[in-house]
């Protein structure tokens, strides 16, 4: 925490200056963070070696990209330490990193200098298959280098009430995805089961399954229908495993104890995440009005803590959209203030066995925060370092959501050595 809170921010430092200033943070993780912060642009030379028979081309995703377009570009990148860079194509006028072809290899290039060589993600074999109902399997489960994502429904009920989270573009993006690609808005359990069965035929390809969707408010208890639907899908996935439990993560609304017990006891799920998105009640009320109105910040937190009794310490987490706490006009006034507030809250969760991680906030064109600027690289490096140090201090494992089983969090990349 000392490192993360030390130092005063002046004018934004360059990548090399940040690498020199934070020698305890691996250069590769700082590069990943900055690439996620600024985005990428593939040059024509780079695209000339992309082979859709080998490389994974962008597949359906829950949230949209920062150029607002669905184009057949490579899905994403890998660094040489196995770190995933989950990154969007970005308009050139926003000054992204370039992915170019240098000496026959793909490289991240900035201001004409090679920053690091990268690899493209390989396409899993099941991407070429269709389900018996005729849907491309890539529309049922989207792959990361070692993880399968099941987006079981791409509608969020908070949007129906005009109370979607302000950084989120789920409904706008999924309308576009349905219209342009024919991706189903809601998945059928039998299609999911069939797709998982096919994916598991490729030895060594996957280590984790992640299930997520928008919030469903209906049911006898709030979220009961969401829970029912997850149970149905998880049971369908479980048909393919010889063991009851399989490495997996559920990212969902904040369920009550009864709902969590049902999920844990009836299905193979092994970890539970419910995203607070921003660790401050006032900012949460502004940024996540739907979550604030239905449960409220404190109840959301309490439910996470109760989940530890069911899933176990180190198997419950909450995700932040790192940087939205500084959004205009009601976000924190300074990066120092934002970090201090975030670490204090993350520590109060960690004491109770809940771990906190973040994704780099990308202001998406389909969201309320479109057109805003995300914070400095130094902010994200300090955020990653601070959250990692809290995890280390409270001996919280992050195995369910680490560099390999997720790959979208700079702070959990740092926790690779815990």
């Amino acid at each position, binding site marked *: 925490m000392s490192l993360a809170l030390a130092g005063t921010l002046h004018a934004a430092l360059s990548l090399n200056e940040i690498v020199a200033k934070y020698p305890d943070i*691996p250069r590769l993780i700082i590069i990943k963070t900055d690439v996620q912060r600024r985005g990428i642009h593939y040059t024509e030379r780079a695209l000339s070696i992309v082979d859709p028979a080998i490389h994974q081309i962008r597949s359906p995703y829950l949230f949209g990209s920062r150029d607002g377009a669905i184009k057949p570009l490579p899905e994403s990148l*890998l660094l*040489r*330490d*196995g770190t995933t860079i989950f990154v969007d194509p970005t308009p050139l006028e926003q000054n992204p990193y370039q992915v170019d072809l240098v000496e026959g290899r793909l490289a991240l290039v900035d201001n004409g200098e090679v920053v690091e060589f990268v690899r493209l993600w390989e396409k899993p074999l099941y991407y070429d298959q269709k389900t018996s109902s005729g849907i491309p399997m890539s529309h049922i489960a989207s792959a990361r280098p*070692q993880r399968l994502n099941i987006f079981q429904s791409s509608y969020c009920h908070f949007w129906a009430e005009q109370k979607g989270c302000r950084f989120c573009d789920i409904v706008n993006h999924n309308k576009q995805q349905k219209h342009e690609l024919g991706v189903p808005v809601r998945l059928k359990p039998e299609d999911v089961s069939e797709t998982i069965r096919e994916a598991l035929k490729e*030895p060594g*390809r996957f280590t984790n399954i992640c299930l997520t969707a928008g919030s469903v408010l209906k049911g006898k208890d709030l979220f009961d229908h969401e829970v029912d639907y997850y149970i149905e899908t998880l049971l369908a996935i479980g048909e393919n495993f010889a063991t009851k439990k399989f490495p997996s993560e559920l990212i969902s609304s904040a369920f009550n104890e009864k709902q969590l017990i049902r999920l844990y006891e009836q299905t193979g799920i092994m970890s539970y995440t419910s995203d607070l998105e921003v660790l401050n009640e006032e900012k949460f009320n502004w940024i996540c009005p739907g979550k604030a109105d239905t449960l409220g910040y404190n109840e959301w937190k309490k439910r996470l803590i109760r989940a530890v009794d069911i899933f176990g310490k180190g198997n419950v987490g909450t995700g932040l959209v790192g940087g939205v706490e500084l959004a205009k006009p009601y976000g924190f006034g300074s990066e120092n203030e934002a970090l201090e507030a975030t670490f204090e809250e993350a520590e109060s969760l960690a004491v109770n066995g809940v771990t906190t991680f973040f994704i780099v906030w990308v202001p998406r064109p389909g969201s309320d925060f479109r057109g805003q600027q995300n914070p400095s690289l130094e902010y994200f490096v300090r955020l990653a370092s601070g959250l990692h140090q809290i995890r280390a201090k409270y001996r919280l494992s992050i195995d369910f959501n680490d560099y*390999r089983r997720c790959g979208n969090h700079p702070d959990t990349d740092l926790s690779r*050595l815990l």
Partner: protein
Amino acid sequence: MSVQLSDELVSLLHDRESIKLLATTDESGTPHVVAKDSIHISEDGTIHYLEHLESSRTNHNLVRAIWFDRRVSIVIIGTHQSFQIKGRPLEVHITGPLFQKHYAEVRHRLGDVDLSGVWVIEPLEVINENPEIRRQEEEKRRPFFRHLDRLAKPLKGI
């Protein structure tokens, strides 16, 4: 700067009977040395090491090495020769065709085991650790480093 390995060393690396040790260092610089039979040479002259366990000390030390540009050391011992290779981890394959090829191969050979990664190590220096060769080298390069009695004329009658 990468060095090319001699034919003698390459065949020792290929030999399943040779003993192979991998030395890495932890956060505090403490060495960690383990015997690893999953070290082999690849077609491009780099050394590949198959790490089975994600949470092993060696794997953690290799991650530190690739993150903070640290060196590792590999010792290969045959019946009559031994070599040490100093190197640095260039890359780890945790996915992709090379990884999946080795994943299938180790499971075929060893049964229900897992594979965490295929580490690619660039050889930077090779030292021939054969004691006789090391002694001759030192005597040639550092003529002061010997005890005088070894140079004394043999006494008559003794």
